[in-house]
């Protein structure tokens, strides 16, 4: 008998594809994980407070800061005139976003000045004492108001077109024209924005910033100070949540702290209060979707023409790429034979909206799912049937081309949906619900299965690059650094797994170090779900270089061929000899082998011509599907999520536990966006939902009562990504559309499923009740 069958192959601790715990889990639960406000402050640290506009749109007539300056503890009051470089923190280079307002304000709570005081409490109190005179200008805060007032666009709009939508719409048997409102969303990262700036010699400055984009903060601080990028070092060990809200929005706080720190030659910290954070930083874009769809009696889509108008706020920020991504996902998983999609990024007198998990994609997809509902209610079919009829086809079929002329090559949506439909017992449950509703006067139920197909890559092709820095010290311990930031998503542990796996050493040997612009330059934001795709590959590249050198060294020293060298768990086999990893590394050091490497990666295959609306913006797609069941109260519009089943595609998972966490968390965040999270501005243009007392994100008791989440374990990325994995940050967010559609079905029951409820988002109890009332009056 062969004895080897009884021997388990030794493996390292922490290879790729294993469910390791978050690297900081132990520190999280003991309260010892350091966030920026926890770092011991340098002696003499000062604190900043913001002086904010109380008008939505006005000229500034005069500013009297004498009472602010005289307040206890105040060291300095800073206005735009004190900025040594440029009064400009526009991440697009459009110069449309001042650090501090000068002659006019364009949203309620726009920063006008900053107070620097001995304590944070003193700074906050002093900031309220300014006397500012305004001359009001007309303002509008929403999309309809912007359209009525002929508002300008904050960036060039995008149009995607394929086929002959105009003529096909006219010639099709059935047609629906309507519109839908989709609300925005506050990020509500638990750690508010924060920056700590520490001045150095010459022009140097070091900034600890809670940011997803240390390089941009570095460049912005240099720009505002009027110095070279090389004088600024930005550090980020971890954020207490980001979700896109810290992609560009940290610039303000870092720049204000830096200007004050250089001027006063003391460390300066800016940490806004939660209410200020919510008022002065951007959010997910609200949309109005105007759709015109043509189809036949069976439910096949013939043509669509959709305009996606967005509330962008007073400046561009990321509104261009966000509205672009809305159009890139206006097809959801469906093939549109003839299509025209247009964006309308409208200027409004509100805070400038920004990145948020999904980046316009969720709004794009929600519009597409509304179109499916319209067809389903018009034809009297289950929306799932309409979905399946219109899915993209397999490669080689005629139904694979997107509205942006990229072919969907890796389509697995039909398989994902088929599997989930069976495992969740969708058909039987749907019938049971229809039966229940027939006999239930007040409580109604609904169920919906919705798909997700999400394009992976920054649509700005240049951002799809990353760097990493790996050192092996002469004791065999490894130092890992890369340009990605950790906001809770588990990027650090995933990349560390790549390193451990590549060298075949236990992950305990790999020290994960804080992201800093001094080690890896010119990085992209940790955004667009790209973190592990880009930085995992860059780290792999660095490891590969060192490994090559080690192999070269071994062939020289041991005089064996390359094929006789193998990296075993924590050891290296060289010919017939087996050497412990650290002994091997030490020997390499004495032979003067360079044990440090900078790795680099750029995503292949992608290109995009925005003007022409053609190209391959995405390297690949991530897929998933969810079934949700809800119950609503038709007297009050209140509802409960009874059950959700998810099947999601992460390719070959780098870390299944971390990925499941992203799916569950993304789903619940999406659930909040579509149900209880409502941003509400009053007639004066003031955001009145600016704290958790008024803005309601989901609680533990809001998550589905039964919540089954599975990975599509059979899936592997068709492209050679790191370990054949797929991005996971954003796609699961859109699985929550299933809840919204299930609520819609429950509403539809009051008119016997013959009328599309046209529910707007978020589906607050009020919107649900009003939709019920509308259907009762029709039905």
């Amino acid at each position, binding site marked *: 008998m062969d004895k080897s069958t009884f021997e388990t192959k030794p493996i390292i601790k922490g290879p790729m594809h294993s469910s390791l715990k978050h690297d900081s889990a132990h520190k999280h639960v003991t309260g010892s994980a350091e966030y920026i406000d926890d770092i011991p402050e340098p002696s003499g640290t000062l604190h900043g407070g913001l002086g904010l506009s109380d008008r939505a749109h006005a000229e500034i007539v005069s500013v009297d800061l004498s009472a602010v300056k005289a307040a206890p503890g105040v060291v300095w009051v800073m206005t735009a005139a004190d900025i040594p470089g440029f009064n400009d923190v526009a991440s697009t280079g459009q110069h449309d976003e001042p650090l501090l307002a000068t002659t006019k304000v364009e949203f309620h709570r726009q920063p006008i000045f900053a107070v620097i005081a001995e304590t944070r409490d003193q700074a906050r109190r002093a900031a309220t004492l300014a006397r500012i005179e305004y001359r009001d200008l007309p303002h509008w805060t929403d999309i309809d108001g912007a359209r009525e007032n002929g508002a300008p666009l904050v960036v060039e709009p995008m149009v995607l077109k394929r086929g002959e939508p105009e003529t096909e719409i006219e010639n099709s048997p059935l047609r629906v024209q309507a519109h839908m409102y989709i609300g925005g969303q506050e990020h509500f990262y638990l750690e508010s924005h924060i920056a700590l700036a520490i001045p150095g010699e010459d022009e140097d400055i070091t900034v600890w910033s809670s940011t997803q984009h240390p390089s941009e903060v570095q460049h912005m601080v240099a720009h505002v100070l009027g110095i070279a990028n090389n004088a600024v070092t930005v550090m980020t060990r971890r954020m207490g949540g980001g979700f896109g809200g810290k992609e560009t929005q940290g610039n303000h706080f870092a720049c204000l702290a830096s200007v004050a720190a250089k001027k006063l030659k003391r460390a300066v910290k800016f940490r806004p209060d939660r209410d200020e954070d919510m008022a002065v930083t951007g959010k997910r874009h609200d949309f109005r979707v105007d759709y015109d769809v043509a189809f036949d009696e069976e439910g096949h889509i013939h043509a669509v023409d959709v305009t996606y108008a967005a509330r962008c706020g007073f400046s561009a920020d990321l509104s261009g790429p966000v509205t672009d991504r809305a159009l890139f996902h206006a097809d959801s998983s469906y093939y549109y034979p003839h299509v025209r999609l247009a964006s309308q990024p409208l200027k409004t007198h509100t805070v400038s909206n920004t990145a948020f998990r999904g980046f316009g994609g969720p709004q794009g997809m929600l519009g597409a799912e509304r179109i499916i509902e319209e067809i389903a209610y018009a034809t009297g079919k289950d929306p799932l049937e309409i979905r399946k009829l219109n899915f993209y086809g397999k490669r080689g079929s005629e139904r694979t081309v997107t509205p942006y002329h990229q072919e969907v090559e890796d389509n697995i949506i039909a398989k994902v949906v088929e599997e989930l439909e069976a495992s969740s017992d969708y058909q039987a449950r749907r019938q049971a619900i229809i039966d229940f509703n027939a006999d239930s006067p007040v409580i109604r139920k609904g169920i919906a299965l919705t798909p997700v197909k999400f394009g992976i890559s920054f649509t700005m092709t240049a951002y799809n690059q990353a760097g990493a820095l790996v050192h092996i010290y002469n004791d065999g311990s490894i130092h890992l650094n890369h340009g990605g930031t950790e906001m809770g998503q588990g990027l650090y542990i995933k990349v560390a797994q790549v390193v451990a796996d590549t060298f075949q050493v236990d992950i305990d040997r790999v020290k994960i170090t804080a992201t800093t612009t001094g080690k890896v330059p010119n990085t992209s934001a940790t955004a667009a779900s790209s973190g592990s795709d880009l930085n995992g590959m860059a780290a792999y590249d660095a490891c590969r270089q060192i490994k090559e050198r080690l192999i070269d060294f071994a062939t020289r020293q041991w005089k064996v061929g390359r094929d006789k060298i193998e990296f075993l768990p924590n050891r290296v086999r060289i010919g017939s000899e087996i050497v412990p990893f650290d002994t091997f590394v030490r020997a390499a050091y004495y032979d003067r082998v360079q044990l440090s490497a900078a790795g680099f990666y750029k995503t292949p295959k992608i290109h995009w011509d925005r003007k022409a609306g053609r190209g391959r913006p995405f390297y690949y797609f991530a897929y998933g599907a969810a079934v949700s069941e809800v119950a609503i109260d038709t*007297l009050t519009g209140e509802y409960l999520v009874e059950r959700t089943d998810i099947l999601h595609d992460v390719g070959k998972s780098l870390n299944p536990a971390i990925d499941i966490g992203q799916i569950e968390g993304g789903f*619940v965040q999406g659930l909040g966006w579509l149900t209880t999270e409502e941003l509400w501005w009053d007639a004066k243009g003031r955001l009145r939902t600016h704290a958790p007392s*008024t803005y309601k994100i989901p*609680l533990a*008791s809001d998550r589905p009562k039964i919540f089954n989440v599975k990975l599509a374990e059979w899936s592997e990325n068709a492209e050679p990504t790191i370990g054949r994995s797929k991005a996971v940050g954003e796609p699961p967010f859109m699985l929550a559309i299933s809840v919204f559609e299930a609520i819609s079905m429950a509403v539809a029951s009051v008119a016997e499923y013959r009328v599309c409820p046209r529910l707007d988002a978020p589906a607050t109890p009020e919107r649900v009740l009003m939709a019920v009332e509308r259907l009762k009056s029709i039905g």
Partner: protein
Amino acid sequence: MSEAIRFILNGEEVTRGDFGPTETLLDYLRLRRRLTGTKEGCAEGDCGACTVLVGRLTEQGLRYESVNACIRFLGSLHGTHVVTVEHLAGRDGALHPVQQALVDTHGSQCGFCTPGFVMSLYGLWLSNQAPTRADIESALQGNLCRCTGYEPIVKAAEQVSQNRPSSLFDPLERDHIQIMAKLWSIHSEADTIVVEKDGARSIVPASVAAFSDILAEEPDATIVAGATDVGLWVTKQMRLLNPVIFINHLTELQSVTSDETTITIGAGVSYAQAFDLLTDEISSLGRLIDRIGGQQVRNMGTIGGNIANGSPIGDIPPPLIALGAELTLRTHAGRRTIALEDYFLAYGKQDRLQGEFVEKVCVPRPAEGSHFAVYKISKRRDEDISALCGAFNLTLDAEGKVGKIRIAFGGMAATPKRAKHVEEALLGKEWSWETVSAARNAFDEDYTPLTDWRATAEYRSLAAKNLLTRFFLETAGAPTELRRFELEEA
């Protein structure tokens, strides 16, 4: 008179006479003690990132409760044991079972909310040996997590309750007797404490009698019990309060007594204490209390405070008005009793005279065979402020006609207010759909609600009418309210 408060912080006895009346426990922990495990997420008692436990002596012994350190003032901590996340891990660095469970279930992502969750779960672990899912979710209502979707955190709570180690492992169970003795010794010095800093005073009266005397001399003092409202005046409005009288330690105000006709609730009774009692007595009211704030707010906030501050959207007044409750106000000179509904004069104006404080509320039990229900509607089911809250108290006569009816709503007017036109439209009529259907329109005569971020005027009006419909259906035996957990599951 004494000039310093005394409490225990983790394992250390603390005496402090150098703080202002509005210094929060959170700032004390983070800025003065560098105990940075406790985080600031919102500074208004809504996110739970600052959750710590406060142990206090009650009639049942030493009781540890989760509280929000961000809106808890230092002056309210005399004679308590403050426990932060730093106290949990064992002396050898081993994680507490609650912490270990969160690690094992992948219950943290960004980690910023995690210490707060640890403390809420720890509070549950200490007080409930075998929590149901409903208990767990209730204990976590005051903790926001934006990363995990909560599933692993709830699993952690379930795992840890199934696997309890010996009590010697746990720092609070291990040191229980010792801590209790120390707190008793602090309480045995029954002196009024006045701490003054920069001219601002914190007053901790030795007894209710001392409190009423002090209030007579300091009629403009701010009375602070749970601080769940006053805390925000400080953290959000940056108001300067001076002097502040802390009364949360006065156990004389925390008694609940009941006889055959009446339940008497002391003004200082917390929502959490009231919940334990009222769930058995008037289940609809118990369910309402479970939807007020998070567990931390229910541990701090008081029934008397919810009434005394006069908010039009407080959840306690509508049901108590519908039940016909009476309020007792006290001064050093004596007491007076008024109908609760008469306490609310206008928006922000109550019938509380200088030097008066709310002492207790007397709630008549619903009559045998009567129907009582209270319904709260909010954007989010739990830990949200009412868009509207309606309470109905109905007694039918022998012929099935409406013998007595009291209806009161919050969120529909500038004060909690009775729906007298609706009551009139129902009184003496047959309790039938025809009667109810006709009475619905009378709501428009009773209330002209506002539109705000919680709901539009149209929704409030329609929902109020529909709540009457719901009440009617329920008296007919048709359950219409959505419940996340059926009674047997809870």
